[in-house]
Each structure stands twice: as C-alpha cells, then as structure tokens.
C-alpha cells in the first residue's frame, strides 16, 4: 500500500495544494508510515488481503467437510479454532469465508467510491461552471442529502426485502448505501482544490475540463480520498457482517464471517470458540484497517464532515 500513495506527491515542478501539504510531503510522511501501530495495521490488512485470495487453498479442510465428532469442540491441535455445530473445522470455514467477507466488501467499497468520485467531481466541476452547471450540482447534492438520510442498515434491509439476498445485490447495496458519503467528501475536497491558483492557471492556459480534473485535481486529493476509502471499507465490512448475522446477507451453503457467528450463536452458552473466532476475525480486519488509516492521517477531514 505504501507505494500506491506516492502519486499524491508532486511530480516535477507542479505546485501542491497549499491547504493540504504545508510541509514537503516526504518529510511529513516518512515518520508516520513507520509508526508501530501503522505497521501492525499494515501487517494485519496485508495478511487478510492474502487470505482473501489464498485462504480457500491453504485451509486444512474443505468448507463443508464434517471432520470432527464434537459439535462446538474446543481449541485443539487438530482444530486450532475448534469445531462448529455440525463438527466442521472453524479455521477452515473462516479461511473459506475470507473471500466473501473481504471480497464482497472490497467490491462494494470500490463501487461506492468510484460512483461517489465520478459524481462528486461532476458536481464540483459543474458547480464552479456556469448557471446550468450550478443547477446540476444543486440537484445532485439534494439527491445525495436524501439518500444519506436513510440509515445504512435500514437501506440494506429494504433492498434485501425487495430483491432477495445474493452476492451481486449485497455489492450493489453497499455501493448505493456508501456512495453519498463518498460523494460529499470528494465534492468538498474537489471544490477546495478548484479554488486554488494553479487551477486558475491551468484554466488560463486553456486546458480542458478532463485535463484539469485528471491531471490537476485528482492527484491533489488522493491521500484524503484514500483515507476515506479505508474508513468506508470498515463500514461496509461491518454492514455486511451485520446483514449476514441477521441471516439476510450471504446465503448458505456459502458463508462469510457474519454467517459463521449466526450459525454458531448457540455455542455462546458453552463458551465455545466457534462463535467468538469469526467475530474476532472481523474485529481484527476492521481494527487493522483503522490502525493503518490513522497512521496515514487525514481522519480529521472525515470527522468534520460527519459522514
């Protein structure tokens, strides 16, 4: 992830947005990237990203194999995280669930942020344009305000009630639910950047809108946008986990980590690891991403906007 941040740094003699980078970015970034909590977060996120791809192939057992005689068995050398209500290996089920929990959430977040960014930039570009553009901006912002007034879990419930639960629907739901927040952030970032002198200079040079957006505006809002992406990913993971926990997310025989908590909820009475292990897996993922983002900085902007 470290290298993917570098596009935010200016290339050649291009001016930097003064409001965001007062000091030279390199001096500011290096100590932050080396913070211990940030490294821990990076390690956790890296681990889970690898598991999202490789998890099913490194799992010791197939996801649905009945391998243990015990239901809700304890941790043992054969079953490191115990067994579930049917005697399946929890570690294997978590590893097989990783592509669902991480993959679906990632797909939803990417869609949400792409949509939000495209619309946000459209709004910002239109808003700084003529009178007709201002109108476009106004309509977009008003529609987003309405969408953001529907609590996300509630929106997901309506979608599932109407269309039934499936992986594509969950991705679409997450994308629609978190797009307005992304729109607001991107729009406000872009509007800020667009008032700066180098944009005026580019306009005076006669550059087109596409050039201004892709070459001048986007690189200068990359870091806060990346931070926002991470926070949004955490929210989407939590939303999807909650939906699966309610039995309205990923449907059997497939299972993400939220489904694993749901199907093993009876283990709670016995204090078996079957119910806690998948819940803790979700917590490590979300806390890992949060730690990583905190060390990247830029959270303040998000909180100020209250999204």
């Amino acid at each position: 992830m470290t290298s993917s941040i570098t596009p935010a740094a200016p290339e050649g003699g291009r001016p930097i947005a003064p409001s965001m980078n007062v000091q030279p970015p390199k001096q500011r970034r290096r100590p932050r990237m080396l913070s211990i909590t940030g490294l821990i977060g990076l390690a956790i996120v890296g681990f889970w990203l690898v598991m999202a791809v490789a998890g099913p192939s490194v799992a010791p057992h197939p996801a649905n194999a009945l391998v243990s005689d015990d239901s809700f068995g304890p941790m043992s050398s054969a079953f490191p995280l115990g067994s579930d209500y049917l005697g399946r290996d929890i570690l294997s089920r978590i590893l097989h669930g990783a592509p669902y929990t991480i993959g679906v959430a990632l797909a939803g977040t990417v869609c949400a942020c792409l949509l939000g960014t495209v619309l946000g930039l459209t709004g910002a570009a239109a808003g700084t344009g003529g009178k007709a553009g201002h109108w476009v901006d106004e309509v977009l912002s008003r529609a987003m305000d309405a969408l953001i007034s529907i609590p996300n879990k509630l929106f997901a419930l309506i979608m599932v009630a109407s269309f039934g639960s499936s992986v594509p629907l969950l991705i679409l739901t997450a994308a629609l639910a978190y797009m307005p927040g992304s729109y607001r952030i991107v729009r406000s970032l872009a509007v800020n950047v667009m008032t700066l002198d180098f944009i005026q200079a580019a306009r005076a040079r006669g550059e087109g809108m596409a050039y201004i957006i892709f070459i001048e505006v986007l690189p200068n809002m990359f870091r806060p946008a990346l931070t926002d992406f991470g926070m949004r990913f955490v929210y989407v993971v939590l939303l999807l986990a909650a939906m699966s926990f309610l039995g309205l997310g990923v449907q059997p025989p497939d299972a993400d980590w939220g489904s694993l908590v749901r199907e093993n909820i009876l283990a709670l009475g016995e204090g078996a690891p079957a119910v806690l292990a998948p819940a803790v897996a979700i917590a490590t993922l979300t806390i890992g991403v949060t730690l990583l983002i905190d060390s990247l900085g830029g959270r303040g902007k998000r909180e100020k906007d209250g999204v």
Partner: protein
Amino acid sequence: MNSTLARLVVKRLGSGALTLLIVSLVVFTITALLPGDAAQALLGQEATPETVAALRAQFGLDQPAYFRYFQWLGGLLIGDPGTSLANGMAVADLIGGRLPNTLKLAAIAALVAVPLALTIGILSAMFRGSLFDRTMNTAAVAAVSVPEFLIASLAVLLFAVHLQWLPALSHVSEINSFSDFLRAYTMPVLTLCCGLVAQMARMTRAAVIDQLSSPYVEMAMLKGARPIRVVLTHALPNAVGPIANAVALSLSYLLGGVIIVESIFHYPGIATLMLDAVATRDMPLVQACAMLFCLGYMMLVLVADVSAIVSNPRLRK
C-alpha cells in the same frame, strides 16, 4: 428568538420535510416497483392468471405506480399505512404494539449514555493528550470498529455464562420488580451504549476542544482563572450548542444499533418486527417500519442542526 434565527430554523425545517418526501419516494420505488409483485408472491407459481389479477385488484396493484405512491403517502400522513400481507392485521396496530418497547430501550440507552459520554468527552478535552485521553480514544476507536454482535457476545459470555448474573435473552414481558427490569435491560443497554458512548464522547471532546482553543479561553487563562473554572464557566456555556449537536447526531447511531441488539436478545421491538417482515417479504410492514426509522433519523438530525443554528452567538440579539 429574533427574525433571522426564526427564518433559518423554518428554512431548515422545510428542507427537512422535502428530504423526507424524497426519502419516501426512494423507499416506495425500491419496495413497490418490482417485476413480480405481492399478489404473485402470495399465490405462488401455480396460481392462474385470473386469481392473480383478482388479488392484484384487491390490493390495488392494478393501479398505476404514481397513483399507488400518493395513496400510500396519504395513508402514512393520516396514520394508516395499510394492512400486513402476512397476517392481515393493520400495520398501525402491529407497530403500535412494538414501538413503545423500542422507544423505551432507546430512552434508557440514551439516559445511561449521555451523562457518561459527556463526562468522558469533557474530561478528555480538559486533559488532552493525557493517559486518560489516549486510553479513552483508543477504546472509542475499538468500540466503533468492531461489530455490535461481538460486543453483545462478549457481554453474554461474561454476564450470562461465566458470572451467571443475567439471562442471555431479554424477557420484557415478565417485569414485576426492579430486579426483573435490570435483568431484562442491562445487556441490551450495555451493548447499545458501547458504540453510542464512544461516538458521543469523541464528538463532545472535539466540540469542547474547539472552544478551548478560542481566544476568549486564552484570555481567561491569562487572567489567572483555574482550569476547572475556565472549562466550567467560560468554555462549557459556549459549547452547549455544539455538544447538543454532537449528542443528537450520535443518538442516530441507536437506529442502526437497535436492529442488531433487538435481534440478539430477542427483544420485542420495532426492529425485530421489521426483520420478520423482511424475512416474509411483508412489504406494507417493511415500508412503514422503514419510514418510521427514517423519520426518527431525520428528527435527530434536525434537532442537531437546529441546536447548532440557535446556539450560534452571531445570530443572538
């Protein structure tokens, strides 16, 4: 209240009403414009086209969509959101039976969370950067980034399984004494409060810090006022608006939180009613519950915005 202030508040209320109207349109569009409709779903695959058409006519589904939307909206406004498809009862009665429970749970959670969060938030702001501040900040980050069901599971494991103080489910129908009340409500409220307190405390801290960094506080410190006095008599009165704003915004967390908490503890509230409706695809009930949640959310956001407007010293006479 002067006229500028009144105009701003009225304007905000108006835009709130408009937003609610758009929300109702979105909710209706998602839930009512399906390729297959309720009549088909209710009768199943084997139904003859005639019976489906008859049931559609009975539900009014043969009317054009915009007509149904206005009919539904009109019903909502006069408090008649239709009848449940699952059991034929009036949706208003079903909701009326459950709503007090949810409001009670939310009110108790708010009563516990608000004083706790304000204390933590103000203390963190006063002793910014101290061990207390950093511990609370870490705890808050952890509390908002783990799923609610993990917190609930840990609470059940601790209080119901290991200590055996409380039952794992919430039995609200058998409340005869204060101890019954505690047994029924402690764990749901505890679970709700974790996320709620975390969010509220962080926003309160930010609001107080904002005030503490303003020039008049510096002036008060320069003239030699003690830190406690600076916070209590100088900063806090000015932070009331931002804090009210933070409290109202954080309370909207409850709307998402109760869905999970009611489900885990089998609490008979509006969220469990809605979850059942979602599972049986009982659309009139889903729509009504959804609008109720959206209304609650909008009201909290409105309270937050209006308290921010009213407390703005620049608008005071």
